[in-house]
């Protein structure tokens, strides 16, 4: 079996069969696995996305609430008439302590969440209580950049900025919410800035936490305010990478962008496990598919293999080889039919080969006979004797004609090589033969040849008509009549055949012989296989059973031999 497989594997068709079976077995399997995985992925992702949307909406709501709360504080300070008046009069430095209660009242309950700074645009010394004002709130130094610049260039609204720094109590501030303080003429008098501790934001998101989530909060300039992922640095321009499932929310005024990352590691783990299991199953299936496909391909290929091997054997000369398929195989199986046809074809081929051999043999025999008949010493002796007799009688003209015809006959005999020739050649040959016989038998018979020109150019086997004519003279003109007649007629039928009739009014033939010749394909050798029998078999072998020779005869009255052959124009 394995030997078969090894010999088959080098066969291209077997490989195609094997690959096709592998494809049709593995591909659907792979598609099914991929479809299941994708469906699982899509459904899970949809679930997580919905969850992420819910979580992010909750986070945004919480953050917006807090931001709004601090914006309102900044607004209330920015619109406080007492503060505006002090700033207008450039007295905030002097009256700073009197403002402390106002600010402190706003700070109540928010001490650990925010710091409030009120800055005079023209001065840099105001501070609330004991808290130190960061150096970068120096209006003289920083009014051209950062939050102070944005407040100066923004129309009234609040500004939210990332602003990480460590205060004097070592607490980290992450975000600043600012508002400019303006007089009635829209002149900037100062600023109120609320610094939000990092802890405040972290706690805010921790309280709102639903599930395993991480947050990246960016300001309008894409600078990170808060990052709980640990991937980015707060205070830096941040290009967010692709990590996990992210939902982006921005504030209504686009002052900040909130990126919520839902930790979907369990999703990835389950997907990873599912992938692994699917991979293993697919691998096992592939392993199983290979021998199965191989088995199937081999079973289908086996008859074809046998056929191929048989044909190889035949090409090596073993024409007796026959395809023998499994006996259990269904007799209607195409391969069995193919084998049967192939075997029949071999049989036919063998028959044809035998016929060819026989035809060749007969052709050779005919030629030999013709040669024997025409150039045998006896023939020549007779001919020369005839010439001598004619010479004694001083029949010079006849001698001359006799020699001419004999010469032609001899020349044709010498130059005769091929198995086919034109009707014209054959008729010329017959004429020469008949002329000789005419002279020999002192013109005791009449000759009538009637063959149209279109038939003259036809191609027929050589030595077809001469044996019939010879047969008429030798066997027909033995009835003692003084005058005989030989009539040779040829024509082309409407169904593209040529027909020749050789008629003689001689002794006729026996009925047995007539039947024998007319059915010569069924038996042979009874009459020596020469003469008419030879002609009949050659025509049958050459052209098939629908052609051939028919004898019609009435004893002591006539003999009519009709030869039918296909019309074939000489092309040479």
């Amino acid at each position: 079996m394995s030997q078969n497989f090894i010999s088959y594997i080098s066969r291209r068709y077997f490989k195609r069969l094997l690959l096709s079976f592998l494809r049709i077995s593995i591909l659907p399997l792979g598609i099914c696995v991929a479809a299941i995985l994708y469906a699982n992925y899509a459904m899970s992702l949809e679930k997580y996305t919905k969850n992420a949307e819910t979580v992010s909406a909750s986070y945004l709501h919480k953050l917006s609430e807090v931001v709004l709360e601090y914006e309102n504080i900044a607004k209330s300070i920015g619109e406080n008439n007492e503060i505006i008046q002090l700033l207008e009069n450039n007295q905030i430095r002097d009256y700073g302590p009197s403002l402390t209660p106002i600010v402190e009242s706003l700070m109540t309950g928010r001490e650990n969440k925010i710091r409030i700074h009120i800055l005079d645009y023209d001065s840099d010394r105001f501070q609330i209580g004991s808290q130190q004002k960061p150096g970068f709130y120096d209006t003289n130094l920083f009014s051209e950049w950062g939050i102070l610049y944005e407040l100066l260039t923004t129309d009234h609204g609040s500004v939210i900025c990332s602003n990480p720094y460590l205060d004097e109590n070592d607490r980290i501030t992450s975000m600043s919410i600012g508002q400019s303080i303006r007089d009635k003429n829209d002149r900037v008098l100062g600023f109120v800035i609320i610094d939000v501790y990092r802890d405040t934001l972290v706690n805010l998101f921790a309280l709102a936490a639903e599930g395993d989530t991480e947050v990246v909060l960016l300001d309008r300039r894409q600078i990170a305010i808060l990052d709980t992922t640990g991937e980015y640095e707060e205070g830096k321009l941040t290009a967010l990478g692709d990590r996990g499932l992210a939902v982006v929310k921005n504030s209504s005024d686009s002052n900040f962008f909130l990126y919520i990352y839902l930790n979907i590691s369990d999703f990835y783990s389950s997907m990873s496990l599912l992938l692994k299991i699917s991979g293993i199953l697919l691998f096992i299936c592939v392993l199983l598919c290979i021998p199965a496909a191989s088995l199937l391909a081999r079973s289908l290929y086996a008859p074809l293999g046998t056929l191929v091997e048989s044909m190889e054997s035949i090409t090596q000369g073993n024409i007796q080889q026959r395809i023998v398929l499994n006996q259990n195989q269904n007799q209607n199986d195409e391969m069995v039919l193919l084998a049967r046809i192939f075997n029949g074809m071999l049989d036919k081929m063998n028959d044809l080969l035998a016929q060819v051999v026989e035809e060749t043999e007969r052709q050779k025999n005919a030629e030999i006979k013709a040669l024997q008949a025409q150039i045998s010493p006896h023939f020549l002796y007779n001919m020369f004797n005839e010439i001598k007799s004619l010479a004694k009688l001083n029949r010079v003209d006849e001698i001359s004609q006799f020699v001419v015809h004999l010469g032609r006959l001899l020349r044709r005999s010498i130059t005769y090589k091929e198995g086919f020739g034109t009707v014209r050649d054959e008729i010329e040959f017959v004429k020469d033969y008949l002329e000789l016989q005419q002279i020999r038998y002192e013109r005791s018979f009449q000759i009538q040849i009637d063959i149209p020109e279109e038939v003259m150019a036809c191609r027929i086997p050589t030595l077809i008509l001469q044996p019939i004519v010879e047969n008429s003279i030798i066997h027909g003109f033995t009835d003692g009549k003084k005058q005989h007649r030989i009539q040779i007629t040829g024509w082309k039928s409407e169904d593209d055949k040529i027909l020749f009739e050789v008629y003689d009014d001689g002794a006729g033939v026996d009925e047995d012989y007539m039947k024998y010749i007319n059915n010569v394909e069924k038996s042979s050798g009874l009459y020596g296989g020469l003469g008419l029998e030879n002609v009949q078999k050659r025509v049958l072998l050459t052209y098939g059973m629908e052609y051939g020779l028919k004898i019609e005869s009435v004893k002591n009255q006539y003999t009519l031999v009709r030869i039918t052959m296909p019309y074939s124009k000489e092309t040479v």
Partner: protein
Amino acid sequence: MKDGKKDRTYKVIVTAIVTAAGLVLGLWLFAHRDHIIPQETNTVSVNILVSLNNNQGNKSRYEEFFQRYHASQSDILVVPFYVISDTHVMLKLIYSKQANQTYDIACMGADQMISLTDLNLVTPMDEYILKSKGLAWLNQIRPVMLADAMKDGKIFSIPFSRSATLLYYNKDKITDIGDCIDLKELLAKADVQYQEHLVPELMAPVNYLLLETVAHQKAYHAKDRFSLSEEDKVEILSQYQKAIQDHIIIKYSENDIVNFDKFIQGDIEMLVASSVYYNDIADKTTFSLGCSPLELYKDVTFPLQGNNFYMVSQPDDSRYAEVWKAVEGLVDYGFTEDNLSIMKQDAQTEPFCHISHYGYNNTSGMAVTQNSKIRLLTESMIINLLKGNETAKELTEQLQMQVDELLKQQPEG
């Protein structure tokens, strides 16, 4: 037939072995590619134009710094071009395009920012700072160091070196002066010591002190940014004019390499000099060294001396990333020669760390486009003042007129 099969099997085995060996070799080469293939050293070479702030002595300090910096790393190759002043840097930058000379970084005073941006000679650095350093880093820079570095919401320079103007004094002979001393108090102190010993006991770069007094102005964004007609300034100029005429002060020029031997050896009791000399002086003196920052007048300090880094405008934006890499490398390495740290967290190690506790130099700088010309006019005025031919009031009024006239003209360049 069997031989044929054997041959095939042999070929398959040999092919498999060769393939496996090739695969292993390939993987090994891939894993060790860094050792096998010499990595191209990606050294960034930048041309830096350094202003010596009118002090030739600064050149050796910068050279020493760059030498140490190059020894510490090989990523950045700094090619310095030294020029004597900010004005020369400006001229070099303006004409560099025509001369086909490329400068990547300008290292010069922060107060040149307006001139540089007006002439489109420098490019903002926000994007690079915010990407690689961030706000937290920026907030850790001592605010005063960022004076005049920002404009129109953009950062055009980052501080690199800073030095303060200090009064060094002999504590063994002079009572503790305290946190700081202004010019009037300094002159009074010098006068007292002169009257006591009848020899000058103060050595100071008077031209520089008076130049800063006259040129003092508020930050460029303040409305009254050039305010020369104040009585205090005239009074200071008059007092110092007289003190020079009376030889109460030993005047020296900061443009030269200065010899402080008289102070170090205790021959004089007070010395006004830059903080860059602190280590040298402290190492050599045998007496108890006192040190106080000098103020122009109450609450208004002398400007911090030093340079900022600017990224010079390039025809091709792609160059900026490399230039920033160099700037960042230099800033991170830190220029410690001036004894005045840029970053807040380093301030505690300074010998005069109390400077950082108040707004040093919070209202100074001549950041206008015509800065160079105004400075030249002012220097000429101080020279004339100290010659004693004209009064301080007359000279300041003349200067104010000249400056007003100049400011009406189109910016230079």
